[in-house]
């Protein structure tokens, strides 16, 4: 009944602040052709495409209609999925469902962002528009914006993240110096990843601590960059996967549970109100569902590495706990002990993660892709030394309410 599905090829572009040498279509096709080459498969063998990005950042609506021809999608099914920060994760999961449904056998899932095409950084224009609708609402009701917690999200991603980080620090007992450690680790790991954006070999927490404070507790060195880049995976059903790849990365479990949007009252002022944005019950539910599907009983023992969506370093710690990889409020202790280093007991973000490279639409797909590389043994310099049997890829976004969790493994689901 169940159809086994695997990733058989991965392709990504070099990520930098400005890819002036390519346009959006060329950027996307760079990733797609790299993936095809990696999978040793031709475009004729591809049945369908799943694509996505955040359209506001480049200012192109339905870009797949314009750039379809570049990636060989003309005359084929193309599904466009876009869910904000989790877009890449949703696109990767869309790739799984497209094959698992039995409707298609070989599918390309591709996601991208080209921030430099936006006159201002996407993080200001694009993300402010998330809240804009609500601000208009509140004004229409005659509410005083100064008294609304909703206005805190006008600080875009950083506005939400500081608020979330403070909650986590308060309940777990960690301090901003742990954020320095996560950020330094991300920069060091990124230096080993040829596609990553912010590479800083030998970066130390002291280096990060020297950078300017943006909003407490975050320093300039804590914050992710806005990158141009794309990533693509080739997803195939079992018989193709076995034929084309010596070690495919099998989809074992996945879920994307939505939490309540975090603005205390919800759009119609009738919500139950998430008061702690670091609580992330949607992530916890998604993780539990994915592990159950993957047959994983104890993620702390059975998961060998994780790629966590951490544009801000606090999020690596928060979500490592929500993914069940560490006990509640203890991820920072594991960090101190070096357990999450690339050669540690449970490496987190050996690629450098979103903290070092953030082409938003692509970021969550990159997490899946990086886990696949580790399982396939193709991560080159940032390959973790331990054997990777099961890996978990995480995506996060929306107004702190969207999560995608994908568990990949070196053998198919039983």
């Amino acid at each position: 009944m169940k159809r086994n599905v695997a990733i058989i090829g991965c392709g990504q572009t070099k990520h930098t602040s400005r890819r002036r040498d390519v346009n959006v279509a060329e950027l996307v096709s760079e990733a797609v052709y790299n993936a095809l080459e990696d999978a040793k498969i031709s475009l004729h063998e591809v049945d369908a495409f799943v694509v996505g990005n955040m359209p506001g950042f480049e200012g192109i609506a339905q870009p797949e209609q314009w750039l379809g021809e570049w990636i060989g999608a003309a005359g084929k099914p193309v599904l466009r999925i876009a869910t904000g920060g989790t877009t890449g994760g949703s696109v990767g999961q869309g790739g799984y469902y497209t094959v698992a449904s039995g409707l298609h056998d070989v599918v390309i899932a591709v996601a991208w962002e080209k921030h430099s095409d936006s006159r201002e950084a996407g993080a200001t224009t694009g993300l402010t528009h998330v809240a804009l609708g609500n601000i208009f609402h509140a004004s229409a009701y005659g509410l005083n914006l100064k008294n609304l917690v909703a206005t805190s999200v006008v600080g875009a991603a950083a506005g939400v993240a500081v608020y979330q980080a403070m909650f986590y620090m308060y309940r777990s007992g960690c301090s901003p110096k742990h954020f320095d450690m996560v950020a330094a680790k991300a920069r060091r790991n990124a230096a080993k990843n040829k596609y990553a954006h912010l590479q800083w070999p030998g970066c130390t927490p002291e280096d990060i601590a020297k950078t300017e404070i943006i909003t407490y507790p975050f320093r300039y060195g804590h914050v992710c960059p806005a990158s141009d880049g794309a990533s693509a995976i080739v997803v195939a059903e079992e018989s193709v996967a076995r034929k084309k790849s010596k070690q495919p990365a099998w989809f074992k479990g996945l879920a994307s549970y939505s939490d309540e949007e975090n603005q205390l009252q919800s759009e119609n002022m009738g919500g139950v109100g998430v008061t702690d944005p670091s609580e992330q019950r949607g992530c916890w539910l998604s993780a539990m569902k994915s592990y159950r599907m993957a047959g994983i009983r104890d993620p702390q023992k059975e998961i060998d590495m994780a790629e966590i969506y951490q544009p801000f370093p606090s999020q690596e710690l928060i979500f490592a706990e929500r993914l069940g990889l560490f006990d509640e409020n203890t991820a920072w202790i594991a960090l101190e002990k070096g357990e999450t280093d690339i050669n540690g007991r449970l490496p987190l973000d050996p690629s450098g993660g979103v903290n070092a490279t953030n082409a938003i639409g692509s970021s969550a797909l990159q997490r899946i892709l990086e886990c696949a590389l580790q399982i396939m043994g193709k991560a080159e310099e940032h390959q973790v030394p331990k054997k990777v049997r099961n890996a978990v890829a995480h995506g996060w976004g929306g107004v702190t309410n969207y999560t995608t969790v994908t568990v990949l493994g070196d053998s198919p689901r039983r």
Partner: protein
Amino acid sequence: MRRRVAIVGYAQSHHQHNMQKTREDMVFEVCKEALHNAGILREDLDTVVTASTDFLDGRTISSVFLSMAVGAFMKDESKVEEDGTFALYYALMRILAGNHDVALVEAHTQGSTLNPHQVSYYTLDPLFDRQIGVLNDIAAAALQARMYMNRHGVSEKHLAMVSVKNITNAARNPYAHRKMPDLSEKEVMSSKVFYDPIRELTMSPISDGACALILASEEKAKKFTDRPVWIEGVGICQDSYLRDRNIDKLDSLRTAARTAYKMAGIKNPLAELDVAEISEKFAHEELMIYEALGLCKEGEGKKLIERGTTRRDGSMPVNPSGGALGADPVCATGLIRVIEAAKQIKGEAGRYQVPGVRKALAHGQFGICAQKNTVYILGGQGS
């Protein structure tokens, strides 16, 4: 298909321009009503897939404040950014994969928020066509219409006949936006010209609207209802970009239809289908769609409308609900067609019911000149 999947409930809003309701209220109402229509609770849902676009909704991450309104709170959910029939495709795949059994599919657009024709301009090639600034979806449709009309000797009167058929049908549909029970061909042909030959009454209106649909696997569907509407075939396809294709043909629709017919085992669609609900954003597209769906030979679309074959009382009724010319809340339009086709099978179409429908086709499209197309074949016992 690996599992049988059925439509077990649905709802749509009263489509109109400037609905005077927030997007959230509009969406909440149709989702609640769809659950009620299926006789299930939110707790019975496994997954939710919605359809809307950031540009049309005028905000980044259009779905983000709708998790509560669509009942996706603490549910496995996702969003496609195009017509609702693509969301239905994704929900169908989620069930076929065996991960889920019951899905809610929701689609909406409030055309009064941001003019959809203005948004179409942002779907153009940003490096060339957008810079020149002469094209949008209506201008491109006008080129398409003229190319098609010249090639096959179709006159403006034929387009008017399509408009009269659909818009008078819409007058019988309580949910439709544009209702003109006494519309004449003359009136259509003297309505305002936007881009020759596209006139006010040969293109769809700008509507606010939403719809929701409940899908269930065979086991669950049989528990929920004794009259499920089965999805027997499905096909989706995307054409090349505007400049790289023959816009006077709908090749991707032809491919999508072929896939869906093959899956449903349909060899002669004109004889085997009882009704079709199609997304004709412009009157001339309806004739092109007839041809691409294989209801007639290439170039003979005009004969179907001349002979009255596709009228509500004809042998192959097309758009008894009024189609997109009757109401066009962009992302919802295709999914409304699926709902209308299901209503025909269940005998719930009221004053526009076609007698004895057992097999129905629904079509959705997205993009300039119908670049992306979906085709669904639905079947049931009939009423």
